[in-house]
Structure formats: C-alpha cells, structure tokens
C-alpha cells in the first residue's frame, strides 16, 4: 500500500494504525502534513497507545488544531462585532462553520482564512463595515481588484491590520464565470442562525458566548459547497482533505430525515448534480462512506482519474504524476472561465509579472 493510500485507509479505520512500523509512520506523517490532514488523523488516532514518538507528533497536531479552532472562532466573533449593524445574514463557510457548528468535519481541521457569505446587494455595506473595523485591502493592483469585483465570487481579500488574519467575503460559492452557477439566494434563505445550545436540522452548535447574526449553511447546502470547492473551484489541490470534510458531513447528516432527498434537490438547484454524484462515489471508494445508492449513480471510468489525482503524492510528501496534475489544472481553469477570457486574463497577468 502506498503511504497516501495508507493515510486514507487509516482515517477510515484507525485500528490499522496498530500494525505500522517506523518507516511507515515517517512516510504517513509526511503525507498527512502535506495533505493538511495531520490534525484530523491525530484526532482519529487519539488514545490508541501508539509508539511514544508517534504519540508526541500527534499530540502536537492536536494542540495546533485546537489553537486554530480557537483563533478561527475568535476571528468569527470579531467579524460578528464588525457587522453588528448589518441586518442581513452573514453566513460562516468552510472550516470556521464546521467548528462553530461543532461538526465532526471540524475535528482536527486546519483553518486558515475566515470565509463568509452575504447577499450580493449588501456587498458595499459589508465592505464598508469591515474597513471601518480595521480590515485592509491586500491587492494593491487595480487590474486584480477590478478582476475580483467583476468576475469573482468574492471581494478581493482583506487582511486585518492588527491580527493579520484574512477574510474572504463571498456573494456566491463559485466564480461568476464558472460553468455551474449555484443559487446563493436560496443558500442564504435556508441558512441557519447560530444560537448557543440549540439543535436545528442536524446541526449541533459550539458553545460560544454570542452568535448573534452569524449563520451556517443548511446541511445539504454545506455539502454542496464542499463539493463545489473540491471539483469546480481550482485544481483539486488538497482534494483528499476536502473529500474528508465531505465524508464526515455525509456520515453526520445521513441520520437526519430526508437528508439524501434534500441533497438531491439542492444539488440540482445549484447545478452541481453530476459533481455531487461523483463526490459520493469517490467518498465511498476512498473513505468507505455509506451513501445513497440512487444519488451516487454508476461508476464512471473518469472516477479512476479523479482517484489517481487525489492520490498523487509519495512517501516524502512530494507531488507525483505531473502530467495528470497538469490535466486537472487545465480542467480547473476551463471550468472557471471560457477560453477567450482565460487567454486574455493570462496575457494580462503575464505582461504584468
């Protein structure tokens, strides 16, 4: 078994870890760090009495992700305070949402930037409120700024001048130029308000002082977003981690009534049905996720290529299979924008670099 396959297998079944030798651990740890899954692995392997050297590495990883969790929640709270006069919904996305909603997908997850979703018509108001609270523009370049505002699904990134943390303000979940065009209004409409000690639609919430005004996506939308993020946005870099998020969510939400039906409805609405089907198949294949058979559909030969792309890393943590990765990079760009526009964009970027 290759080290990256061993990583996926160990996340799926932590009992395997008892049989690894030192060389296998060294490679597994390098791969898990490279895929940003070391925190998730450490949480999965907690309390298994592994070799002391391995336990020390895993304890470090748990400590790091606990600190990242705390910092992410603090950042969300800072954002909440900055938007206290905003009356629309501010929806936490990705890692911050997973820890705020106390989800399994948040356990040991690395969290970088704060991502939020607001209504497109309110972008100006939200932007002004954040600027007034100490966030500043990162992109100085007028072309980049214009490009973001005209074509992207988010404002140009902002960094807080004191805390040095980045916020991405989204108005939808994929670039305007991308082929699938999800329905952000529907996402906002069914977003769930975070309230302490509440239990709503399968989303448990982190105990935290005040969540007033902050929301998370509904379970089906959350899964759709994670899947859009995995396939349609970018080059599938770090895909194994994104797929792990999806596995955790599917397992957690599967218990609530009508989840699979709701997922099918939302997937169609956001034009992500084929992506959702494929994600279910890959998650089942790689992490053994129990999925709805009707929705998952039949295996396709392309699935093998996706799986190979997700597993393109060796035991030193290096990326492998450069041609396959290049193919996915081109695919990622082709999905993000039409060819003529891509050519124009790359030409402008190249002339300026």
């Amino acid at each position: 078994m290759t080290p990256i396959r061993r990583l996926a297998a160990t996340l799926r079944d932590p009992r395997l870890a008892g049989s690894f030798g030192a060389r296998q651990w060294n490679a597994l740890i390098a791969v898990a760090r490279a895929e940003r899954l070391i925190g998730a692995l450490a949480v999965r392997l907690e309390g298994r009495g592994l070799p002391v050297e391995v336990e020390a590495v895993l304890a470090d990883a748990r400590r790091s992700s606990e600190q990242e969790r705390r910092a992410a929640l603090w950042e969300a709270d800072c954002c909440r305070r900055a938007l206290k006069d905003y009356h629309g919904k501010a929806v936490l996305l990705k890692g911050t949402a997973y820890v705020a909603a106390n989800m399994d997908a948040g356990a040991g997850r690395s969290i970088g930037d704060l991502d939020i979703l607001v209504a497109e018509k309110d972008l100006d108001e939200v932007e002004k409120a954040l600027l007034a609270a100490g966030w500043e523009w990162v992109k100085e370049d007028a072309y980049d700024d214009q490009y973001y505002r005209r074509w992207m699904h988010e404002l140009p990134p902002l960094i807080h001048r004191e805390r040095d943390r980045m916020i991405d303000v989204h108005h939808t979940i994929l670039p305007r130029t991308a082929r699938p065009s999800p329905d952000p209004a529907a996402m906002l409409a069914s977003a769930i308000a975070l309230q302490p000690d509440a239990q709503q639609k399968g989303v448990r919430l982190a105990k935290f002082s005040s969540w007033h005004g902050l929301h998370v996506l509904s379970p089906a939308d959350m899964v759709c977003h994670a899947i859009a993020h995995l396939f349609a946005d970018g080059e599938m870099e770090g895909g194994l981690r994104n797929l792990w998020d999806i596995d955790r969510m599917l397992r957690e939400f599967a218990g609530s009534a009508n989840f699979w039906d709701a997922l099918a409805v939302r997937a169609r609405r956001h034009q992500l049905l084929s992506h959702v089907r494929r994600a279910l198949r890959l998650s089942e294949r790689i992490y053994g996720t129990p999925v709805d058979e009707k929705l998952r559909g039949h295996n396709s030969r392309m699935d093998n290529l996706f799986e190979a792309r997700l597993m393109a890393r060796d035991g030193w943590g290096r990326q492998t299979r450069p041609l396959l990765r290049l193919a996915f990079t081109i695919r990622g760009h082709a999905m993000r924008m039409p060819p003529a526009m891509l050519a124009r964009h790359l030409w402008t970027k190249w002339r300026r670099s």
Partner: protein
Amino acid sequence: MMHELRIRVGPAAFRIGSAWRAPVAALERLYAAYPTPSYCDYTVRLEPARPWRRWLRPSVMISGDYMLPDAAPLPLVQGLLAAEMGMNLQMALGWRRHLLLHAGAAEKDGRALVMTGMSGSGKSTMAALLGESGWRFLSDEFALLGLEDGAVHPFPRLVSLKNEGIEALEQRVGHQRLGPRLRGTPKGDIRHLVPSHDAIQRMDEAALPRLILFPRFGEARAIRTVPPSELFMRLTQASTNYVALGEAGFAALTRFCETVPARAIDYRRGEEGLELIDQLWAQFP
C-alpha cells in the same frame, strides 16, 4: 532515488531526503556522533528546483513538512547550509513541545545562560566560544523553553559559524570538528562546527535558566539592565511559536520574564564578551 539520513538533535528527530549524495555524505560526517532515530518528527527534502537542475548548475530547493513559499534555492556546494535551513524551518514553524526562542544557550553549574538578539549580534559565536571554555554548549540557534518545567532544553545542532566567528573558533578547535568553508552564501561565509562530545552526549539534560543576555558585538563595553516588560516584548519577537502556542506560550514566557534577570551587554572582541559573561554569571547565583 532519495538519499536518506535520520538525525536526532535534542528532542527533535529529522528525516532528511536528498536528491544528491553529497549533502548527505557531508551531514553523515559531521553528525556521526548524534543518535539515529527510527521514528522522525519531521521530513526535510533537498530537491532540484527544476528537474534538469539535478545535473545542470545543480541547485537545491529546501522543502519538507513545513515550507516557505518563496525560499530561494542554493547552489549544491552549499547543500549543508540547505539542510540546516530545512531543519530550522521545521522547528520554527512546526515545533509545539517547547516555547522556541531564537537564542544561543550554554550551561554551567547546572544552570543555563540564554543569549538572544538580532542576527549577527554574535550569539552564535558566543555560544560556541562558551562551549570551548568550560561551559556545556546547549544551542546556537534555538533555546527550547519547557512549557511545564520552565527549563532550557538543549538543541545542540551543528554551530553555524559566520564570518569573524569562523576565525575565532578555527584557532581553538581541530579540523576534524569543522565542516567545509562555504563561501558567498546569502549569510556570508559559513563554516559548521561540531559541538563538543559532552554537549552531544548530554543533549537530553535540561537546565533551569539563571540569566538572559542580549549581546551586541562591535560596540564599546557596556552593561544595561533590561526590565521584565521590555524583556517580554523582545522575547515575543524572538520566539517563532509564541503565537501558535496560545495560552501555554504566554504562561511559559511570563514565568521566564518574571524569574530570570536580563542584561544587555556590548563588547568589541570575543574575549571581552566572555569576561562580561563571567562577571555577570557570578552576580546571579
């Protein structure tokens, strides 16, 4: 394809993989007295920046578990420096078991002296000089402050001697303890020094801190008291993982600043520095 070497330095175990044999051979010679761990905390990779750079004007890109996105590659003859930088990077960005201070350290009478300051302030040279004059060398780069015990844990990697520091040590130690002179590196000339046998043998023995100094090389002789508030601010800047450790880092650093006396010292020559250190060491029993 990868040449592999595993080294343990103090509490940290490294797995170094290199596309070339030469850097590994150089490391094997200099790290011969160090333990070889089976399990490793970190992977460091020395790879060609582009595939053809393995043979054509070979240049080493430093990468590993933790990386800097825009690190410049080094020529292959500086492979030893690349390995050192790769190991430092893993510690600076990854280590969570101690509060990491960018500092040199040495031990005498069972207690530790910590020296911190800007790059080029002379702390590396001073730690190496102390290691050759009756002190036990603990580290020239990272002082590892215990989060629970408050002790300074040794990290006695090879000393990275720079410029004037090279001559100062060449006069005192034999050639078998020195690496090749690396000319024209981004940090000037560099020569690696193997710490004394005793420093390597006792790399797992921690010592409680007794004094912290801010040495400054090349200035007229002077001693100045550094108040705890200033010490705290300067050490938050000298630590690479203070923020990442959160509350544990704050607690460890606060305790250190409240209990360890701090002085800034200026000196013109190494001998003068050693004199000042002996004088201050006697003042704080």
